């Protein structure tokens, strides 16, 4: 009993606190919603300073980004990337402890879409720092990550196999640097990925995609492809007027969904413990009872309590934005539905999470039965309490991401222009406005601007 009790006691307190990840970050999020990113950083450092924690680094990275501290932001994201790479090596001991406690003891290493979006923020950091060369390094890193992802998910039913938004953004930047071949590859990748996004998430290809494909095909001298795209996108105007430049506006809308913990019970019937010698097989049979199972009360031996994560969306009030640069106005369109990616990632991981959670529950149940047999009812109750206390769903995620990312592009005369924003809800009513200062646009070049709204 002492051995099991000690194991569970140690394991029960290894996870960082008992509240869900979202509740632990509540004070930080409140400060972020006020636009007080310095206070949000202070909250984060006050409560959860763990340089080895990927989520700590990601939150610090995004906060420094919004504060305009691009070097510091990149340092944090770099540390997160290095840590994620190190975590490829899985700790057997931690895996063993998680079998008796919770998945929260296993270090967080991010879902594929979260790792990909690190490159979005790092790219913007370098762009705003006027460092196109390092921005392109981030584009190449993103493309490498997506190529690896595509290889790993080939033939699988995984939803996230490529990132249309990142492919599109990297294409624009490659073109800015005159690397037209790379831009072409990324743009064609974006075209394919957006077609998939459209069918899976309802995120349509942005209207400028056709213009970009026509223009690049023409500039590269790919005449067959140029004719194809001219036929497919007949209304696209692929030539920038002389003396004009372009503004690319990226709107980060709302807050990414959080994960809540839901508890449920699974019935273990009399005699089943002895009938199924293979714990894994037993766990799978119990997991299948998740959707409901009919039994007689007299058959019941034990109600196994398990906790699993569930997505809690936080749909934003704002549906889209209108950006005005000088005399030009454009509305934003969604190019990345982070909420949908988050939900899909959890949904696809759920069968494994469920089986592992039930397996953990069965292991704990067998352990408590042994303790009860050896030490009596009191020992059994104590062991039961400890196992219940250590049962925590893994609710971690990069929740400081936006709910969705939207894009608008405007052609404007070269020069300095005032920028104003209007944010509209689903009915088209204006719910907020903002003035971002001015932006300088050079002829034939692109200027980038991003904005985050929290409601």
């Amino acid at each position, binding site marked *: 009993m002492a*051995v*099991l009790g*000690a*194991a*569970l006691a*140690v*394991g029960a307190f*290894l996870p960082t606190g008992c509240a869900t990840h979202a509740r632990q970050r509540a004070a930080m999020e409140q400060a972020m919603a006020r636009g007080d990113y310095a206070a949000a950083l202070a909250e984060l450092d006050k409560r959860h300073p763990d340089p080895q924690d990927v989520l700590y680094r990601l939150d610090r990275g995004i906060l420094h980004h919004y504060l305009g501290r691009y070097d510091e932001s990149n340092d944090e994201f*770099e540390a997160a990337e*290095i840590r994620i*790479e190190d975590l*490829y*090596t*899985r*700790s*057997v*001991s*931690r895996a*063993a*402890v998680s*079998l*008796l406690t919770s998945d929260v*003891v296993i270090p967080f290493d991010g879902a594929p879409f979260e790792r990909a979006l690190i490159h979005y923020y790092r790219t913007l950091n370098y762009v705003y720092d006027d460092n196109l*060369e*390092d921005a*392109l*390094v981030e584009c*190449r*890193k993103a493309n*490498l990550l997506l190529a*690896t992802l595509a290889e790993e998910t080939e033939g699988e039913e995984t939803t996230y196999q490529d990132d249309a938004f990142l492919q599109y953004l990297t294409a624009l930047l490659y073109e800015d640097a005159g690397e037209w071949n790379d831009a072409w590859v990324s743009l064609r990748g974006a075209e394919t990925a957006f077609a998939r996004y459209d069918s899976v998430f309802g995120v349509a290809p942005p209207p400028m995609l056709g213009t970009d494909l026509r223009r690049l095909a023409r500039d590269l001298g790919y005449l067959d492809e140029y004719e194809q795209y001219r036929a497919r996108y007949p209304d696209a105007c692929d030539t920038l007027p002389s003396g004009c430049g372009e503004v690319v506006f990226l709107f980060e809308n709302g807050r990414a969904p959080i994960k809540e913990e839901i508890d449920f019970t699974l019935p273990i019937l009399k005699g089943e413990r002895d009938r199924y010698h293979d*714990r894994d097989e037993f766990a799978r049979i119990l997991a299948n009872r998740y959707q409901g199972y009919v039994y007689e009360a007299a058959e019941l031996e034990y109600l196994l309590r398990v906790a699993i994560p569930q997505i809690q969306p936080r749909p934003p009030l704002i549906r889209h934005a209108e950006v005005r640069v000088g005399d030009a106005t454009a509305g934003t369109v969604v190019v990345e539905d982070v909420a949908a990616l988050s939900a899909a990632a959890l949904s696809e991981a759920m069968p494994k999470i469920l089986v592992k959670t039930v397996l953990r529950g069965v*292991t704990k149940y*067998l*352990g408590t*039965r*042994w*303790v009860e047999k050896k030490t009596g009812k009191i020992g059994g109750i104590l062991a039961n309490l400890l196992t219940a206390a250590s049962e925590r769903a893994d609710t971690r995620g990069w929740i400081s991401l936006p709910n969705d990312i939207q894009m608008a592009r405007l052609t404007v005369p070269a020069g300095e222009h005032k920028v104003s924003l209007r944010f509209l809800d689903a009915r088209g009513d204006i719910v907020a406005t903002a003035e971002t200062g001015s932006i300088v646009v050079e002829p034939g070049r692109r200027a980038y601007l991003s904005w985050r709204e929290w409601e």
Partner: protein
Amino acid sequence: MGAFRIAAIAILAAGLVVFGGCAKRTVTRVDTDTTIDLSGHWNDTDSRLVSEEMIRDCLNHPWVTQHLTSAGGKKPVVIVGVVRNKTTEHIPVGTFINDLERAFINGGSVEVVASAVERGDVRDERDEQQHFASEETAKAFGREHGADFMLSGEMNSISDAEDGKKVLFYQVDLTLINIETNTKVWLGQKKIKKFVGQGRYEP
């Protein structure tokens, strides 16, 4: 597996988790020429080895003696221009450029002039001297040594990875161009290949 054995393994594992991360940090000073590869990414050893080898190759080519002959024995003047980083890593190109300049100077066959970035600071200093330094010590304008040749290039990389094994391939291409005639007098290339293995499991 009995519950007792499960618990025993768990307590051992918990102990490893709790106490395993308690290693004290130690610092050891090493010689700057010591090769230490940690992550497998581009590091100071790569920068030093590539620059030394490429410049040694560059200085062993005929363009040096051809210039000495045509310029009446005057050493060629070289400026190191832009080296573009087209890899998938944030490589401190400034360090590599400094290594190239050092290798050129240490080779003894050429003179190296300040790069475009550095000479801006030098010219500012010269301008300050016109206003504040004594006439005898103030340095005059219009007396810079114009470079005869410019060195520029790019760094590329290819990465291939599967199941914790990664092969990193770097290629550095440098070109030396005659600034007056625009002719390329030397083309150098250096490749580095690294294998990085990372175990899937640890205690």
